[in-house]
């Protein structure tokens, strides 16, 4: 029998900020790579500006008769039903990053959000020697943000010498982070460190600090591991000395898992096909290991 | 006459707009079934008074009684409930709706929750028949001529069998034929006991139509007279407050120089082979019925309409007028008949309007505001424009004063050839006289003037020659010595030499 073409649908949120841009970049890169390396695969990559648009995207992909679906849901509850529909109709389903309330997938792959918060908290606490003043810039008001902030706060709470002066959202946007940081700098005459959980926002923060001419801020920690920031760490920036991974390339691994799983192949040297849950570690990137994380051309 | 009999009595009605008094203690009793004329110069407060009665404005003080009962009229809806209908001075029709939809706007006939279009259409056809207006009930308003719109307005006011019918200059845009029909209708309504309040600047009309008249001047009630006891001369004197002599000036001398020549002008579906010339110092009149194409002729000359054929010569030189800018450059000016729709920017001040076309004369890079104001002030004095201040926006001026601003706006382009389309529409006798004298002084200076008018008296009194148009063609030409209403009407109606059957206003009443 001739091997049937494997149709893989990939649905992601549109590139509305750096990380999602990276996501789309990685999805397209993986599609291109696998088209070369694998026989008989086809990819349909779609990006949605909102959760309800994404519901339509998945419906459309199903019309195209996909065999596998790799999806990073805009918001899990909104996508729950349509992912269920896909999964129940026999489509091999990989959910990325944002977990469904009621599992309806073959594989879930994500970064470690709580881990990102706690690794960040621990590193920062160590760098501050357990005392000082921190301001926090949060992401968009979705569960991921809450998991990270909660975990961070929990770690910091163990260090009574550290106070969190302020914690406001900037939606993972450079521009908004810049404005929020400018205001922090006005409001708080002394700040020792900033935690902003996303490297895009970190750029806005750095700009605000630079313009204010203030030198009290000794440490700024972002997150998710954008290429620009990794480069800064490699270059030995005195303030930006680390970041914590939350890689958008998880979607590429999701696609790999979908191909493996849908074809019932073994995963790498494992004795099994794709596992049902893959959590990518929140890794600390600092001067010691930064060079390993550099990817040429990546969008994030 | 006792007060109890009065269908409408006004008691000390005053109105001011933010401190500016425009009506002062107006008291008058109007009897059922009478036709009350209202006279006054532009801005005297006529429209304001009628708007108070019909609920568009609220009085500042005083009270209104309907059939002896104190009436609170706070909106047009209140007025309607009390049996008051109004035909406003400016058009009040919805362009995108059809004739019958406009006539029944706000007073739709229904069957259950749904509209009864059939009944409304039928009623409309009846009304239009009554008005002898050959209009389709389904025609869209935006496709109608000014006069046709006016007939729709009249039909709209008639729908409700109002007790009191208010008409604010209903005849300004009508030709004599339509005016005749309207007057017949007013007579009929009157005989049914309907009370009519009637504003007009045409004194002859008032004389013919009204039982009594009231004269306003600067917001004061000057007189209430029995029409039979007052002649036009007196009316004018009371309005203006002084003697008014010689409405039409003597004609100036026509020079040999042809200022404008039009040859074989055609516009698709509208105009056919229009040719004529005007000399310097000459006033050329254009007569004709509604829709005969006079406005189109002017617009085609000015480059506002695409010409199919035709050549235009200015001062003997052929000119290529592709748009109105070219026309202005060649010294042409065109005062449109539709001053609100085409003429004036209503939220601009007086100087801003006057300098709009001639702005380049006031600006070398930057506008010299002082100069525009001084110039505007000059026109305000010359034409006696009444407004709160130079900086009043045009929407707050009375109709006649708007017209004067419009005329100033074109004069400020220093034209050589002036085309005036219904120049005295809605203008009071005194202003009319001023405009006529102004036209004369322009021709004295060698300007050529084209006057398009539905007011035959105006054509007769002003023009050296009159061209009469009919269905997009020039039907005939009348020299000054041959000018009279009958001859114009014959040509306009396309009836050659049947003088006996000519309709005449005078015969009617």
């Amino acid at each position, binding site marked *: 029998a001739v091997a049937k073409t494997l149709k893989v649908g990939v649905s992601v949120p*549109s590139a509305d900020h750096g990380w999602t841009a990276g996501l789309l970049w990685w999805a397209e890169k993986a599609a291109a790579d696998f088209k070369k390396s694998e026989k008989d695969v086809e990819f*349909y*990559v*779609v*990006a949605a*500006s*909102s*959760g*309800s648009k994404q*519901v339509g995207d998945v*419906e*459309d*992909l199903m*019309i*195209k008769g996909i065999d596998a679906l790799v999806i990073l849901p805009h*918001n*899990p*509850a*909104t*996508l*729950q*039903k*349509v992912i269920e529909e896909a999964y129940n109709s026999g489509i091999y389903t990989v959910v990325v990053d944002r977990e469904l*309330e009621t599992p309806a997938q073959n594989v879930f792959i994500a970064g470690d959000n709580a881990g990102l918060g706690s690794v960040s908290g621990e590193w920062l606490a160590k760098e501050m020697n357990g005392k000082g003043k921190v301001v926090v810039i949060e992401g*968009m*008001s*979705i*569960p991921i943000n809450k998991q990270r902030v909660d975990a961070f706060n929990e770690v910091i709470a163990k260090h009574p010498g550290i106070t969190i002066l302020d914690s406001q959202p900037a939606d993972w946007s450079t521009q908004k982070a810049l404005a929020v940081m400018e205001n922090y700098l006005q409001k708080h005459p002394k700040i020792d460190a900033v935690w902003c959980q996303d490297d895009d926002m970190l750029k806005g923060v750095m700009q605000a600090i630079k313009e204010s001419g203030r030198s009290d801020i000794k440490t700024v920690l972002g997150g998710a591991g954008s290429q620009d920031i990794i480069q800064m760490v490699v270059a030995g920036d005195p303030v930006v000395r680390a970041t914590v991974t939350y890689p958008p390339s998880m979607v590429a691994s999701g696609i790999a898992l979908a191909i493996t799983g849908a074809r019932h192949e073994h995963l790498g040297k494992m004795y099994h096909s794709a596992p049902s849950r893959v959590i990518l570690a929140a890794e600390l990137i600092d001067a010691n290991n930064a060079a390993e994380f550099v990817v040429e051309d990546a969008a994030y | 006459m006792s007060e109890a009999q009065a269908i409408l009595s006004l008691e000390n009605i005053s109105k001011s707009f933010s401190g500016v008094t425009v009506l002062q203690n107006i008291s008058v009793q109007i009897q059922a079934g009478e036709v009350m004329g209202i006279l006054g110069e532009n801005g005297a407060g006529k429209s304001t008074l009628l708007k108070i009665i019909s609920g*568009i404005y609220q009085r500042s003080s005083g009270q209104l009684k309907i059939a002896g009962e104190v009436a609170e009229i706070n909106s*047009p*809806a209140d*007025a*309607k409930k009390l049996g008051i209908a109004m035909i406003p001075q400016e058009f*009040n029709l*919805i*362009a*995108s*709706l059809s004739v019958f939809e406009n006539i029944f*706007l*706000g*007073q*739709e006939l*229904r069957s259950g929750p*749904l509209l009864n*279009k059939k009944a409304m259409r039928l009623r409309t056809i009846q009304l239009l028949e009554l008005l002898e207006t*050959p*209009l*389709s009930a389904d*025609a*869209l308003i935006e*496709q109608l*001529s000014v006069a*046709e719109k006016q007939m729709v307005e009249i039909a709209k006011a008639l729908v409700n069998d109002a007790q009191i019918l208010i008409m604010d200059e209903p005849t300004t845009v009508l030709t004599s034929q339509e005016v005749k029909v309207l007057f017949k209708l007013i007579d009929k309504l009157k005989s049914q006991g309907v009370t009519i309040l009637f504003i007009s600047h045409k004194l002859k009309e008032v004389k013919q139509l009204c039982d009594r008249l009231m004269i306003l001047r600067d917001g004061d009630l000057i007189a209430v007279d029995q029409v039979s006891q007052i002649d036009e001369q007196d009316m004018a004197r009371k309005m203006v407050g002084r003697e008014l002599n010689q409405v039409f000036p003597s004609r100036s001398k026509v020079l040999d120089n042809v200022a404008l020549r039009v040859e074989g002008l055609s516009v698709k*579906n*509208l105009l056919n082979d229009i040719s004529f010339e005007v000399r310097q110092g000459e006033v050329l009149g254009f007569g004709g019925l509604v*829709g005969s194409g006079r406005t189109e002729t002017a*617009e085609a000359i000015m480059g*506002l*309409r*695409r010409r199919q054929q035709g050549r235009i010569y200015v001062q003997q030189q052929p000119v290529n007028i592709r748009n109105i800018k070219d026309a202005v450059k060649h010294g042409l000016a065109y005062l449109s008949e539709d001053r609100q729709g085409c003429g004036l920017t209503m939220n601009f001040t007086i100087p801003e309007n006057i300098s709009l076309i001639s702005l380049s004369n006031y600006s070398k890079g930057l506008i010299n505001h002082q100069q525009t104001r001084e110039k505007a002030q000059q026109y305000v004095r010359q034409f006696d424009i009444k407004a709160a201040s130079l900086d009043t926006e045009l929407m707050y001026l009375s109709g006649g004063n708007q017209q004067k601003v419009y005329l100033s706006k074109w004069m400020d382009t220093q034209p050589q050839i002036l085309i005036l389309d219904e120049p005295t529409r809605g203008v009071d006798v005194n202003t009319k006289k001023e405009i006529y004298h102004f036209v004369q002084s322009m021709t004295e200076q060698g300007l050529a003037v084209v006057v398009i008018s539905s007011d035959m008296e105006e054509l007769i009194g002003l023009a050296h020659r009159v061209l009469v148009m009919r269905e997009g063609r020039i039907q005939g030409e009348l020299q000054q010595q041959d000018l009279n209403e009958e001859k114009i009407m014959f040509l306009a109606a396309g009836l050659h030499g049947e003088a006996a059957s000519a309709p005449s206003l005078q015969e009617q009443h």
Partner: protein
Amino acid sequence: MNEVVKMNPKNPSIASSSWLDKLPKFSMSSWAPLIALLVLVLLSAMASDHFLIPRNITNVLRQVSYTGIIALGMTFVIIAGGIDLSVGSMVALVGVLVIMLLNYLGDGWLAVSIAIGAAMVMGAAFGALNGLLTTKGKITAFVATLATMSIFRSLTLYISDAGEMVSQNNYYPDIGGGYWLGIPIPVWLFIGLAFLGHIILRHTAYGRHVCAVGSNPKVASYSAINVQGVYFLTFVIVGFTVGLSAVMLSSRLNSVSPGDAGLFYELDAIAAVVIGGTSLAGGKGTLWGTVIGAIILGIINNMLNLMGVSPYLQGTVKGLVILIAVLMQFKRER
């Protein structure tokens, strides 16, 4: 704009009563949306084998029904000379409140019915708020609803603590996810409302008044029309349709995500209305045009996905198709 062009070479003023006059009058420009739709369907059917699959058609129709239903209400607002930018956030707010109510009421059909009723009432009430701001408050509709857009979204986040709201009711999903005679329920509702709206707009005095108010409020008020009342009510109408759309959406998904539900719906709804031939200047428009406009937008999205257009370029294609659809209408006004 510069030149006065007569669109209709017939002499309109003569009472010719030929049978031609009795036909409803359609100019090229009022047929345009329908023609654009047909062309698009044809092209789509040629471009993709999947397009005409019945399931795809019902999918597309369901996808457009959420904004389509709102676009119907929006048509009234726009014809009356207004605009409502708050509809998207209002969907989220009503959606969240409905699910909270549903979870409070517990399981069963009764709870569902009450919730639907409540959604309509809440939508109408929020619409009334916009109506008050624009009439009593005399604030331009654009600004008033820009402000309430921000307010509604923020209240949604506040009430729900930014967390997604999931309904516990087992019957609720049957509303938005259900089918009747093979056609999704939201689609039935869309069609039914379009029909009802058409009757109101064309065949009732209120509809006539909406056109008059949008065309010239001063004239309308001289005609003894309660301008403020008519205008106000259009906002209530669009609020009402928002309420229904919120029910369809939240029941289809059995959840509402406060930050994202209804995002950009205002743009899609307005685009549908305008592609359907209703002028933003107000005064005239049709509901069937809006239905067609909504479907055109839906087909564009669908085809972009079916044809696998690069996600980066989808926006370009979508923009171009909107331009072409509107260019076909040879619109006179700005």
